[in-house]
């Protein structure tokens, strides 16, 4: 299920509620289930109801691509990245998004999303655990805004 381009949900980390990470979750395949697991376990909390956000606290837009990206859907990933406002970062979640994973040699799979968008974090796994996702988001959120890579 590809999240609609332009759909951007705000999540904050349960352990660091002041750090707002605006996550665009592009759930393509199995890894999307681990993203959902992180949400259902309360590690990532949707921020609909946060009444006020401290403007001084760091906030970052993170595009999280979870799951195999086919050549046919590559443009949608690009579009999602380009529609994300600054400051922004992209996170490749799982082997398929890093290198194509099990489908590295496929005729229809993008061999790593870094071939189509800049990527700032790579989370290895097939799929990675929700804990790995949270740690990667945390490390991104705590950094100063990044220059666009590549």
């Amino acid at each position: 299920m590809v999240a609609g381009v332009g759909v951007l949900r705000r999540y904050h980390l349960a352990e660091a509620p002041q750090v707002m990470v605006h996550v665009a979750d592009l759930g393509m395949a199995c890894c999307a289930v681990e993203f959902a697991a992180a949400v259902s376990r309360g590690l990532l909390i949707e921020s609909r109801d946060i009444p006020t956000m401290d403007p001084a606290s760091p906030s970052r837009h993170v595009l999280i691509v979870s799951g195999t990206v086919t050549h046919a859907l590559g443009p949608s990933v690009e579009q999602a990245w380009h529609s994300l406002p600054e400051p922004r970062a992209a996170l490749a979640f799982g082997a398929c998004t890093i290198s194509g994973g099990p489908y590295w040699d496929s005729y229809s799979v993008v061999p790593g999303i870094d071939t189509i968008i800049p990527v700032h974090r790579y989370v290895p796994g097939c799929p990675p655990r929700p804990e790995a996702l949270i740690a990667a988001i945390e490390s991104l959120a705590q950094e100063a805004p990044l220059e666009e890579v590549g």
Partner: protein
Amino acid sequence: MLVEGQPEEWRQALQEAIADGFTYLDLLSAIDREGGVELICHLVRLEDHRSRWVRAFAADPNPQAPTSIDLLPAVSWPEREVREMFGVEFVGGSPVPLLLVDGREGHPLRKSELLRARQERPWPGEAEPGGRRARRRHRPPGVAEPTDSVSGRRQ
């Protein structure tokens, strides 16, 4: 019940099956065989749940069969998929690709078509224990034997 035949008989057999009440398309697909492509179609008669298999062998090169899209509109997508994946020309049918990105050459589901990434990437398993020279080259699955480009002989 199985009906086998040449591509010319393919459409005829489908037409007869539909006339016999087998009007529900379960699948239309293909099997890569030596020397060509076997077309298979499974039609179901909903009244009594009986079904009929129709098969035909479309030989290389240029495997083809007449389209059945006017007999059963449901074959539209499967014919397009078999066309792009196996290279079978459904004469009179739709040339529009179904799944593959525009402009892509080749027919990926034929065994003769090797995955390019596998040919290009050096296989780490080539090396021998202790860095010794191998008597016979190990080759991973899906990678072609290299041929002498001049004589065409296998190395």
